[in-house]
């Protein structure tokens, strides 16, 4: 038999070694809808605990919004439970078309194609659009799903130092001889919370005859004056050739992603992208919910404004409390701790204080750059943020890191 005792032992040993390295992921169960306040079962079997959630991608607080839920219900009633088909066979409903059209309008693009997730969109887009004669020039810290997609495609690729425009230019020059150059970057980087200077990127793209692809998953819905994304923020809305983004974060949080941009490129995806061709169509209830989400975010900037206020408020207070934070003006706020164990211990103590956050460490972030990544939401009220800051202050004091800079923390805890 294939799975003999010996094999079982072999795999069990690998799991054991993950535990020994301190890299084991614990199980936590949320026993309530996703919101600013949630009920958590941790460790498994323990009584449920009410905690404030500061680590969800629920940027606009729409994950459990009653209007969105109602729209999803209506979608179930009107268009059923599942499509049981890939898109191109018999999996495309009118509501799929509607969502795509609305998304193009929202993002200011020519065309949009839905995928089961942005992970799938990223996996499929490069292979569909580029050939071996092309080159992809990517920021070194792009999201893992983009890396996977780039590796899958036959085009060559190269990388430039994170957000370093001079280095990007050098690479563009280096690869002048290729058929096309595609610059790939995140709009907002998910571990650091900083924004790519997209205006400069587009300027370079112009100068060196290159295309630009931006993964705006951590920006769609709230970055930019009316929440359309990084390209709105930098005033380059018509300069970006491809945008991949998700409906699984700020835009509702259920499922779904898309590729949006120049009509021909999107059409190539529809014809050739493997995840599009081979994966089941997005469920009607989610499509209906997403349409409602777009309606809500297009109709008013109330939510993204509140998120911006919350972000500013948190950053001010946490810095005043004496903690080091990174990133720019985005709702992703990494509280820098550098030492992995420190990050883990503090996150655990924060949980005991009723604040749910997670420590991030190698390999998710570079070694020696461990952090607790706080994510703000429009669902947070001031009192929630005050509680979180108070907890950080209390725990920060417990570990004696308040007021210390990187050098100070590293001296105390090592890397």
């Amino acid at each position, binding site marked *: 038999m294939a799975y003999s005792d010996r094999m079982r032992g072999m795999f069990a040993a690998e799991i054991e070694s993950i535990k020994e390295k301190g890299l084991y992921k614990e199980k936590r169960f949320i026993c309530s809808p996703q919101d600013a306040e949630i009920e958590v079962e941790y*460790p*498994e079997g323990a009584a449920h605990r009410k905690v404030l959630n500061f680590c969800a991608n629920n940027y606009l607080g729409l994950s459990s919004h009653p209007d969105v839920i109602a729209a999803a219900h209506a979608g179930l009633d009107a268009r059923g439970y599942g499509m049981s088909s890939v898109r191109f066979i018999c999996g495309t409903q009118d509501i799929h078309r509607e969502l795509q059209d609305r998304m193009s309008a929202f993002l200011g693009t020519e065309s949009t194609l839905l995928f089961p997730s942005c992970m799938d969109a990223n996996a499929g887009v490069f292979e569909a659009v580029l050939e071996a004669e092309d080159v992809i020039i990517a920021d070194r810290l792009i999201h893992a799903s983009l890396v996977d997609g780039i590796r899958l495609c036959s085009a060559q690729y190269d990388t430039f130092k994170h957000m370093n425009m001079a280095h990007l230019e050098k690479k563009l020059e280096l690869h002048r001889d290729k058929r096309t150059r595609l610059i790939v970057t995140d709009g907002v980087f998910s571990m650091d919370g900083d924004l790519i200077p997209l205006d400069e990127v587009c300027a370079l793209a112009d100068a060196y005859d290159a295309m630009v692809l931006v993964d705006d998953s951590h920006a769609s819905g709230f970055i930019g004056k009316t929440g359309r994304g990084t390209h709105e923020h930098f005033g380059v809305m018509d300069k970006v050739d491809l945008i991949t983004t998700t409906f699984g974060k700020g835009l509702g949080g259920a499922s779904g992603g898309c590729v949006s941009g120049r009509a021909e490129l999107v059409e190539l995806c529809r014809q050739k992208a493997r995840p599009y061709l081979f994966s089941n169509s997005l469920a009607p209830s989610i499509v209906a919910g997403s349409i409602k989400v777009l309606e809500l975010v297009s109709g008013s900037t109330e939510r993204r404004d509140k998120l911006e206020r919350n972000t500013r408020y948190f950053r001010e207070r946490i810095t005043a409390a004496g903690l080091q934070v990174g990133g720019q003006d985005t709702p992703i706020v990494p509280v820098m701790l550098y030492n992995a164990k420190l990050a883990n211990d503090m996150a655990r103590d924060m949980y005991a204080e009723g604040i749910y956050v997670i420590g991030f460490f190698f390999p998710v972030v570079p070694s020696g750059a461990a952090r607790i990544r706080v994510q703000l939401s429009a669902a947070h009220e001031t009192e929630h943020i005050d509680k979180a800051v108070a907890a950080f202050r209390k725990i920060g004091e417990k570990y004696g890191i308040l007021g210390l800079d990187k050098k100070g923390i590293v001296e105390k805890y090592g890397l």
Partner: protein
Amino acid sequence: MIVGMGIDLVDIDGFRARLAGSPGEALIAELFLPGEIAYAKTQARPWETYAARFAAKEAAFKALGAGLAQGLRWHEVEVVRAESGAVALELRGAARARADEKNVGGCRVSLSHSRAVALAVVVMQNEQEGFRVSNIGSYEQRLKDFDWNEARKVLDWREGELQNIGHMCSDRICARGHAGKTALIWEGFGGGEAAYTFDDVRVLSNGFAGMLRDQGVEPGDRVCLFMDKIPALYISFLGVLKMGGIAQPLFSAFGDDSLEVRLASAETRAILTTGKHVKKVRKILDKLPALERVIVVEGNPDKLKDGEVFYDMEAGRSEDFACFRSGPETPSVLHYTSGTTGQPKGAQHVHDSIWGQALTAHWVLDLRDDDIYWCTADPGWVTGTSYGIIGPWALGVTQCVLDSGFTSARWYQFIQDNRITVWYSAPTAIRSLMRDGKETVDKYDLSSLRHLCSVGEPLNAEAVVWSEEVFGKPFLDTFWQTETGAMMITNYPGLKIKPGSMGKPFPGITAAVLDLETHEPLTEPGKVGLIAFRPGWPAMFREYRNQHDVYRSKFVGAAPDATPDQLRTDGGLWYVSGDRASIDPDGYFWFVGRDDDVINTGGHLVGPFEVESALIEHEAIAEAAVVGKPDEVNMEVVKAFVTLNPGFDFDDMLELDVMNFIRKSLSPLAMPQEIEVMEKLPKTRSGKILRRYLRALEWGEEVGDLSTLEDD
């Protein structure tokens, strides 16, 4: 004598051949069969090359230390490394020890060619260093062809001798030449001390016997002993038995209500007490028409009331007393035990119990002629009579009694002063000792201790491991009850210990776990069921006094009209102890919980012992009691009451830490939903945690009989 080293298993016959004619031969033949060898120490005569030289070095055997004292079998020792000058021996399941360099000079030990297991077989010659084979030798061997005549052999019993516990524990010992041997070393409050030889015990107990008879007490009458752990308690116990009475020892801490219930139930004829406690008796006297004699054995004779008698134990010494001719089935001791509901039950024992008590004391407590033994239990509780009087004295062993409040310092001092060798204690005391830590232990010289046992509650693994670290040997858990009269499932010297396990059935005891529904013995290892025994062992209680129905209810499959005799002798029945356990693939029993203590949460059964053991492994938690509490969704959920070790504050962070810690050893279904910190846990006087009390509080129910609650 003979020393062998590096002998492989297959060569056993060759080894035995070489022993032929040597003084060790008989000893070896008696101890084991091929494949099983017990250890002993030697001052060896050179016999074979390096093996002999090695064996001659005492320090190497110091390294075998704890293992040898427990009579570890050969395959439990592995020579893991040999360098000139030092030998490291790993005792599987026991502590690793290293031989002293200066004592093992320049000798090399070769590792056996197979499996790197070298047998160190050393046959005893010189017993001075105290390393000996245990009394039981090999447990597996003892199981083969066992019958209770073993007990008679151990006591060197001749047919026709008088079977009376009082006589056997005093007169008989004197008759066998030990009249001058110390029987009892006593220390009391305020530094009082006393010592008694077996002859003292004989004549003083004669005095009690004669006095009771003179007072009109007759054979079969119940005589209550109601006093602190003073010498008179131990000696009068024997006196009562010698005149054929039924001894009814009761904790001196009982209040008058508790006293009344038990004296009324037993229709006690006479009570022996002290000036300190007689007031309680006076309060209830007119409610007890059967109680005709109140005899005060210590205190001020002038302070007595009408009808009360003063008896001076010393003045009453009497050379002769015609001992009552009791037989095996003559009632001897009446012990009251509390159930969860209803009144306390009187478990009636008989003189035949001595065989069980003597043999278990010999094999499990490993008592020998030269031991100094300390049983910490009060004779108000069955441990204090079975193993605090009958077991040791039937074997003619010296024992110590400490009548003072518990502090770890006082206890360690007692051990040090008296050079105590064998110690029989209880988990509640051990946990208190753990709380006071190794630092306290290190202040005393406890090197005399050679063997430790525990009784009363299942002993958590943590305590077993701790005692091994701190005393050099583990406490052996022993499981039995008031009703069983003697140990039933226990650990043994020489049998590998699995910390947290009850051990294995005593030879002659047939034990099983029965399916909760069908009451058939379970065959699948690990499955939880009711602990059950085939009736008929010598120390088994003969009935619950005046509660035949309750007695019958303890026997699965009993006919509705069966008499106690029928129940006891029906080999087709099972006696259920009221506890749940499972048996592992190696045959070890693992306690889950009292039937009444098991928690049913959402259809899953959770045993409190497992959860409690996991909790106390956490450094912040000293003791834990786990019960079910009501829940809307699941009917019952797990709740833990804990006491903390010094220096810990139970805040949210500590709670989360504890939960994550125990999650590593418990399934999600056993996780407590709530942890409440208490100053101390409610316990019985005998130190058992009273879970039902906590449970009743949680459920808002009647708490039931609280007479055994410590703080009465």
